[in-house]
């Protein structure tokens, strides 16, 4: 009689297994990114009880609900300001925003740029699947020029956002982009982001086979993984002006584009208060727990 040995998947401890199966389609890239994230958390050794995850609305917005962490599934586009309140009220927490391109860059775009400008100490993981998946495949601020979506049935007339450039120009201290093909690199960048103090942003390019790819006749998820493999060029430290993805045929520049240091919002707040108020001021979030 053969004995099958069973080893628990190391990421299982991060998952609300009682909520499985998840809602994501077969071939969707979000799950891949979550797997990388769970492994990154494991690797960087953050105590799980002090790690909170905040999502907005949409397919990626569901990530918070599947992670066995303090998790907040907020309103559409507003994960970042919620995370800002959470982090400032208890600076001991590590706060990660995990959401999609539509949520973070369209309806939530204003919060994204201001959080980067403030160097708010939160980590933002933006899964970019080039369209609105949850609502059935509408055009997003990331949709390739000319491509089809339900609300651009003749092709999108808009030039998409270059998200790494957007956040880098606002002052993000860590900016990276990978695809769901680059699981090892993505996990490594996530570890760096989690350890980084300040506003860190990772764009994860992911296939949406059910809506975006099918409507645009781009094949299956496997085809997109092949595209990711073939079209990706790793260019660490490149000027983010150069990393726009306007057309589906463009090369995909991936890598860690920005990795720098500057004081966070709270560092500056404490320093200014200390300077003006002297000993009357007890720095917030330093030893107030």
């Amino acid at each position, binding site marked *: 009689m053969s004995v099958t040995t069973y080893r628990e998947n190391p990421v299982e401890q991060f998952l609300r297994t009682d909520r499985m199966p998840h809602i994501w389609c077969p071939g969707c890239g979000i799950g891949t990114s979550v797997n990388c994230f769970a492994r990154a958390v494991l690797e960087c050794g953050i105590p799980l009880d002090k790690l909170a995850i905040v999502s907005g609305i949409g397919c990626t917005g569901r990530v918070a609900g599947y992670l066995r962490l*303090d998790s907040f*599934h907020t309103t559409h586009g507003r994960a970042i300001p919620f995370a800002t309140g959470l982090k400032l009220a208890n600076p001991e*927490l590590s706060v990660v925003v995990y959401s999609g391109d539509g949520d973070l860059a369209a309806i939530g775009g204003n*919060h994204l740029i201001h959080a980067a400008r403030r160097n708010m100490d939160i980590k933002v993981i933006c899964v970019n699947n080039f369209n609105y998946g949850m609502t059935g495949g509408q055009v997003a601020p990331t949709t390739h020029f000319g491509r089809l979506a339900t609300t651009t049935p003749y092709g999108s007339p808009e030039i998409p956002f270059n998200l790494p450039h957007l956040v880098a120009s606002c002052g993000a201290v860590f900016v990276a982009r990978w695809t769901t093909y680059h699981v090892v690199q993505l996990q490594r960048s996530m570890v760096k982001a989690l350890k980084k103090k300040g506003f860190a942003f990772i764009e994860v390019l992911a296939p949406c086979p059910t809506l975006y790819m099918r409507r645009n006749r781009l094949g299956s998820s496997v085809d997109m993984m092949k595209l990711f493999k073939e079209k990706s060029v790793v260019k660490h430290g490149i000027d983010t002006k150069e990393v726009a993805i306007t057309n589906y045929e463009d090369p995909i520049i991936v890598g860690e584009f920005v990795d720098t240091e500057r004081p966070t919002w709270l560092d500056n707040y404490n320093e200014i208060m200390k300077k003006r108020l002297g000993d009357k*001021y007890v720095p917030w979030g330093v030893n107030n727990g």
Partner: protein
Amino acid sequence: MANIKWTTADPKGVLTGAHYLDGNHAACEGALAAGCRFAAGYPITPSTEVVERFASRIPEVGGVFIQMEDEIASSIALQGAVWAGLKAMTVTSGPGFSLMMEHIGLAAMTETPCVFVNVQRGGPSTGTPTLPAQADMMQARWGSHGDYEIIAVSPSSPQECFDFIIDAFNLAEIYRVPVMFMMDECVGHMTEKVIIPEPEKIKVVERRWTDKKPGEYLPFEPDDDLVPNMVKAGDGYRIHVTGLTHDERGYPAATDVTVHNKLVRRLCDKIYKNAHKIWKWEEMDTDGAEIVVMSYGISARVALRGIEMARERGVKVGLLRLIVVWPLPEPRIREIADKVKAIVVPELNVRAQVAREIERVVAGRCPVIPVGHAGAGVHDPNDIYNAIMEALK
């Protein structure tokens, strides 16, 4: 038993003494006395002084103020702060209040205790930024989509801005509900003597933390008062909080009619069924009155002169001043309606926002006469007097 623990104010936030303050500054002091340690706001007339004072006071009290990029951000940043364990508020006026509506619904759905201060100005749209109105009363109650109940409190003076915003914070904690603190430009900018008591004389409710341990705790399992006890992020409970319809575990059940019905009914019932513990009003000369004026905020104060003029002519007029406007003290309103010739309701809106609700409650027992005013000023007491005299006929 519900985990409600009364304590006294943290002395760090209390400026004990006699002060000469406007309503906006007094509201800020009240919030600090109530234990508010986080505020997020966006500048908007006529409310801005509340957060300006908060920004200046909070560094020494211990807490954080941040001016966010808009009111949408402010109204959810404060909810993040609440889930991190602090008491929090945001402050705004008309257009900003409109932008906050979605997050009032989020706070109602996720049972996030917090206070929204609205120093009302005239609308619609940009309206009269520097002049008063009471035309957001229905918006405060129903402005977010979906079914829910909130609590609304309305002060008539700077002293009450101090005193009643403490009630607002306490009610928010007890019922885990967003509380609307409905000021108006007139009360906000009126300067009067404000007495701030010693901290030990200020009663404050702590957050209703659970006694249960991780594993046995269900984040949305109601206690016997229909309100769930709370935890915060970082305590090891690993909770999930969502604006989707959720079960007692906090897990989404957005296609489950039974779960949805149970949740929404409880969100409403926790206010309806506890309403008798929430109501707060003040009466003057209502015994034996022929006419009772029912009003709130600045209008109740202006009405005093109209009432006085009628009394000088021998009319028996009383006043019922709502301090908690939502929920209305329905049984008392009906009791009065059974005894009087008419109820007169002056308020700074022309659509009779509160008067219509009083009319619904009165259900034909007596006439309910709204005395509307479009705002950008307060009533001429003569108009209230005339309405009283008309009602007598």
